[in-house]
């Protein structure tokens, strides 16, 4: 109630924005899209396929209680407690990939032979706080 008395009379639209910050903290840890083409790295001479590659990446703040939503282990909360109560030189948990998917690549080798290869862990598909 106190906040309501202090808060200026706001339109319903602002109110929903106002309350949203309590429901979903801003720039929370989540997966972000990133797409590159091998020609930008001038590698298209020897990487024949795929032409575009979306490795994705994880970015955002890890909430203090990073519960099941991130599939974070209990260790994450312990690390937070250490940072807050015991030793601030211990870093807070970071937003990192938890799962990946593979990528198939067709390349030309220096001897002119051609190789099709499937690489593990080339595209981030899920983030976690660790």
């Amino acid at each position: 109630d106190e906040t309501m008395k202090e808060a200026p009379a706001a339109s319903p639209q602002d109110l929903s924005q106002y309350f949203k910050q309590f429901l979903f903290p801003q720039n929370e840890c989540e997966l972000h899209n990133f797409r590159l083409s091998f020609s930008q790295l001038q590698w298209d001479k020897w990487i024949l396929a795929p032409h575009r590659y979306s490795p994705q990446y994880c970015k955002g703040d890890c909430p203090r209680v990073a519960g099941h939503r991130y599939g974070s282990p209990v260790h994450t909360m312990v690390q937070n407690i250490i940072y807050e109560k015991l030793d601030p030189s211990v870093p807070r948990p970071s937003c990192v990939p938890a799962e990946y998917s593979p990528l198939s690549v067709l390349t030309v080798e220096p001897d002119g032979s051609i190789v099709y290869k499937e690489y593990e862990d080339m595209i981030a598909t899920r983030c976690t706080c660790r």
Partner: protein
Amino acid sequence: PHSRGGVASDKPSGFLGAPEDPTSDFNPLLWLPKGMRRGYALLPPLLKVLSERGQQNWGSDVPRLQPDSRALRYMKRLYKMSATKEGIPKDNRSHLYNTVRLFTPCSECQHHHGGLGKGDVHSVDLLFNLDRVTALEHLLKSVLLYSFDTSAPVSSPFSCTCHLSVKEHDSSGQVCPSVSHSVAFSLHLQVRKRKWVEIDVTSFLQPLIATHRRNIHMAVNVTCLVGDPQHSTELGQPVSMALLPPSLLLYLNDTSEQAYHRWDSLRHRRKNPGRPRQRTSPLGVPTGDKGMETPQAQRASRQRR
């Protein structure tokens, strides 16, 4: 990064435009554990880009021999069959390989005997250099890849016999055919169509590739006659067509940590559909009894859950 039960060679890959002195500690390849240095096409250039901080010309233009255009066409078609447009491997159960290498014979050592691929007999000496195959890549299948281009449409089918013999160099350097192998196949070429023919030579080459032979020298004779042995007793006239030297295709299972192991992820998905995949131990299976739950323990943990 651990190799799964293989012994990786410690020769840094020639692939990277690495600094002249490969032993210099600025050579990004040396940052990699030995198992990762050779043959993983993508890793060295990625490291080179990261080590050349700030430089714009990232292209790792290692001098490269130009690949054969027909071979390129075939491999692009294989890529389309094996992966989606975004490059995600298709979950095709029958396709156990995670690596396919295509080698074209080194041109200076092709010796044609008899007609230049005209008329009914086509025989050629071929030398394949398999330097790019790593110690962690295990052979699943090997084929000789012929592309048949018929200039004039061939109305009726014809049948071919392919005779292979591997040439060993004895101590005095004298070449003597040691192992030979014959394969018969029949071809039904539609009008004006290029036809790829894969001649399975797995059993023939397995012993050589399993011993990590770097060069394979073989003589190949192909004889084609009009007619199809299944449907007619006498075979007709020789077929006149252009027969270019074949490529060697190796379907391999790369057992290194960087390669994608579909049966790993299939098994993982069956067991824990919702949980992130735990990296299996370098040996691929838990060792000893400490890694395996006894049936009683499994039952107890199931009841607890």
